[in-house]
């Protein structure tokens, strides 16, 4: 790939296509990063709209708005969109924008593949969403698509679902390859591995996780496809197959997948907390080791999603112990952030507010995770709203909040304008209050015995469900404030300095705001900036 050298890149600068073709053909990491982020937010709103349908139906006992089969399609597609359409592309967008700027590279290493990996995504989601309008409806078997519900008993649109999933997987793998090649080959002279900002580190590790597990997902999906359409019996007991095999394969992908959705968050928080504490990150190297050990352990815990599936007690013990062990490096991270804040000089701009909320709420999700790891008690929690509460704490007030924090932190760099601080604070406070009204009571619902993925429930759950739904609508509406803030900021506002945050560190703040179309065409002089961390 000779055209990644600054000299050649310079060429396309001069005849940049205009209009829509500029975006279709672009190989610029900043353009592609923006497209990923816009796509991700669009999907976030769409998946959110489906969540509103779910919460509206669950506002009261009885069936009011939708029938159960459609309800199941909503929960399934909501989950798929949020995981593969909102959270993962948002991180890829952030990586595109920030990784080259953070390591002093001119662009991503494989710009044409970068263009592809973005542009196949919209088609994947068109297929997925289109399947909802087919006769018989779209996927209705949960984002975990357990066989045989997803094979023998699934709607005719299942082939589309599998195809969409394959495209998403290919996109993720291409994105991951690009990140790895960029980081290993394009660091500016002097940017050693242990000087890289943690966002770069966490993404490097995430990219390896992606390459390891997306093919596993593709395998599971392909077996579902052949079981349904071509007469194989991988998961069909009547043909000598094993439905539990599906779960092992799925969760061998699925557990690392949940870390794919949180490791980059750790990197973001590790950038923001020091910036607004005006103090270096505490325990940089233990952060790197903790991330790596979380990633390693994530391959040894998949069956904690399957304790009730029935397995030998020895296996249950093994997976319980390994899962509990994950709390150790996770705890180290939280302790390091708190120690970074300790005796700092703290200010509370919006990125910091989201980062603090992340630390508190993600930790609560970690606690419920630890409770779920305890096998005998997991038998009671499993497949109830307790689990729903757990993963929304880590994914919404965890991953999504970190993405919001990142957006506010780097928006001045992207747009060259400061955002409307007042409105952004409204966004924060509305979100942080409603997210807790939405998800905290779900713990109680689960403990009291409400199963997940049901369209109607027993009367004793009615009051709490009503509160949860109100929290849900409030959280959904709050995100529209974010939309307004971002649009305003893109269009204008107070000009942003090259380094708008007093305590921020890193190469991205050495270039002007907005960042020029091409940055670091010649490698930066690393003596100008302190270590990346």
């Amino acid at each position, binding site marked *: 790939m000779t055209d990644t050298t600054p000299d050649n890149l310079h060429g396309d600068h001069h005849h940049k296509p205009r209009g829509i073709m500029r975006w279709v053909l672009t190989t610029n990491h900043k353009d592609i990063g923006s497209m990923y982020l816009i796509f991700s937010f669009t999907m976030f709103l769409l998946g959110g709209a489906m969540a509103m349908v779910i919460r509206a139906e669950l506002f009261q006992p*009885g069936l009011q708005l939708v029938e159960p089969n459609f309800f199941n399609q909503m929960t399934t597609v909501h989950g798929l969109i949020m995981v593969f359409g909102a959270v993962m592309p948002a991180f890829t967008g952030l990586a595109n924008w920030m990784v080259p700027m953070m390591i002093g590279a001119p662009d991503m290493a494989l710009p044409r593949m970068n263009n592809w990996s973005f542009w196949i995504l919209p088609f994947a989601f068109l297929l997925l969403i289109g399947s909802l309008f087919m006769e018989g409806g779209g996927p209705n078997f949960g984002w975990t698509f357990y066989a045989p519900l997803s094979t023998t008993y699934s709607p005719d649109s299942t082939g589309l679902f599998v195809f969409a999933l394959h495209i998403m997987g290919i996109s993720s793998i291409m994105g991951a390859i690009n990140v790895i090649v960029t980081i290993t080959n394009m660091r500016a002279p002097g940017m050693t591995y242990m000087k890289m900002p943690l966002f770069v580190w966490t993404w490097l590790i995430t990219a390896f996780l992606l390459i390891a597990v997306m093919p596993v997902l593709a395998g599971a999906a392909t077996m579902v496809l052949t079981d349904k359409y071509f007469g194989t019996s991988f998961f069909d007991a009547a043909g000598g197959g094993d439905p539990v095999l599906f779960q092992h394969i799925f969760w061998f992908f699925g557990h690392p997948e949940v870390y794919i959705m949180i490791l980059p968050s750790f990197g973001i928080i590790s950038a923001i907390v020091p910036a607004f504490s005006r103090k270096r990150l505490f325990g940089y190297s233990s952060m790197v080791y903790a991330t790596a050990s979380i990633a390693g352990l994530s391959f040894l815990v998949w069956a904690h999603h399957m304790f009730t599936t029935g397995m030998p007690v020895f296996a249950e013990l093994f997976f319980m112990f390994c899962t509990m062990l994950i709390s150790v490096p996770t705890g180290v991270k939280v302790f390091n952030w708190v120690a*970074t804040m300790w005796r700092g000089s703290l200010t509370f701009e919006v990125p910091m507010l989201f980062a603090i909320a992340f630390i508190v709420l993600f930790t609560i999700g970690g606690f419920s995770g630890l409770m779920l790891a*305890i096998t005998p008690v997991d038998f*009671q929690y*499993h497949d109830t709203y307790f689990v729903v509460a757990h993963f929304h704490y880590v994914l919404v007030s965890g991953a999504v909040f970190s993405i919001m924090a990142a957006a506010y932190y780097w928006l001045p760099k992207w747009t060259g304008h400061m955002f409307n601080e007042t409105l952004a604070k409204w966004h924060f406070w509305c979100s942080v209050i409603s997210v807790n009204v939405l998800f905290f009571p779900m713990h109680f619902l689960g403990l009291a015995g409400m199963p997940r993925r049901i369209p109607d*429930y027993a009367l004793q759950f009615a009051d709490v469900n009503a509160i949860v739904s109100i929290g849900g609508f409030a959280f959904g509406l709050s995100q529209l404030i974010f939309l307004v803030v971002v649009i305003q900021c893109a269009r204008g506002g107070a000009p942003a300095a090259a380094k708008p945050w007093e305590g921020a560190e890193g190469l991205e703040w050495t270039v002007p705001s907005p960042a020029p179309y091409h940055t670091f065409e010649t490698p930066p002089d690393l003596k100008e900036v302190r270590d990346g961390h």
Partner: protein
Amino acid sequence: MALLSGPALAAEREGWNLTQGVTAISQQVYDLHMTIFYICVAIGVLVFGVMFWAIIRHRKSKGAKPASFHESTKVEIAWTLVPFLILVGMAIPATQVLLDMEDTSEPALTVQVTGSQWKWHYRYFDHDVAFFSLLASSPEQIRNERQKRDTYLLEVDQPLVLPVGRKVRFLITSQDVIHSWWVPAFAVKKDANPGFINEAWTKIDKPGIYRGQCAELCGKDHGFMPIVVIAKPQAEFDAWVQETALAQQKAREEEQRLLDMEMPMDELMALGKQVYDSRCGMCHQSEGQGMPGVFPALAGAEIATQPDRLVDHIDIVVNGKAGTAMQAFGPQLSLKELAAVVTYERNAWGNDTGETVQAAQINAVKSGEDL
């Protein structure tokens, strides 16, 4: 701790906490749950306490100057090791409880539990008793057209009856997709996997009625397949088993007698509607209109209107259709009920074939004879 256990008890009374249940195991599980919870709360108070202290005291607006420390091997080793030791402390009791739970040896009674879309089937080993257990809340209640009872969605037509004070073993399996049999009061939740048998056990301390639900997404009516267990003292349980075995024996004899009888249209239609609404309507819908692309319509369908398709019609109801959600109702319903429901489907919603179907015809198809 004392401060916290007050609210925890209140939460339990209000039904907001995990149930303590009615077995020794469920009590142990509850204790474990509370222990881990309190440990988490203590760690949380500590960590968030330090953090909020920093947030309040170490603000720039209060003139705080940043310190310059950014690592400390000693501290970092400490906060790796201490959590590890806490985890070991949690793992020991957890392992103990788990080993107890998985010990299904020497049961006094064995019940086979079979899930299917969307009902449970129970079969008692060593007793001639077996039956299906279906949701008893009505479609009108679900559609908010009729008052719901307190037990809405947690009520069934035929509950599972178990003795107290004896170790009952469950052999759990499924006929179609994966279900999960869950009764919180026993702390038993085990998946029902097609083609495989899972084991679980319980020993109930107190007589009473205990309710649970299917806990694994199993298709459209996953939310509508509850579990109800009535726990009775041994003597009452024995009496119940005998009575039920006798009644089921009688019903089978009655079946044979029916083969020679002609039932009139109105009787067939009345019974047929009842069976249809409880067994078939959840998929084919109350007016036989089906759900396009998911479940076929029966109103106006060839199979339910053409005289030469009668055998096919009976066959699919009795034997089901492999590889689809249409299950075999032959083993689930009596000959009389089968005759009634087929008659109903051939005459309701404008199908008006005028044909009645009799138990003898069902029996003939069932045993593979020509009509």
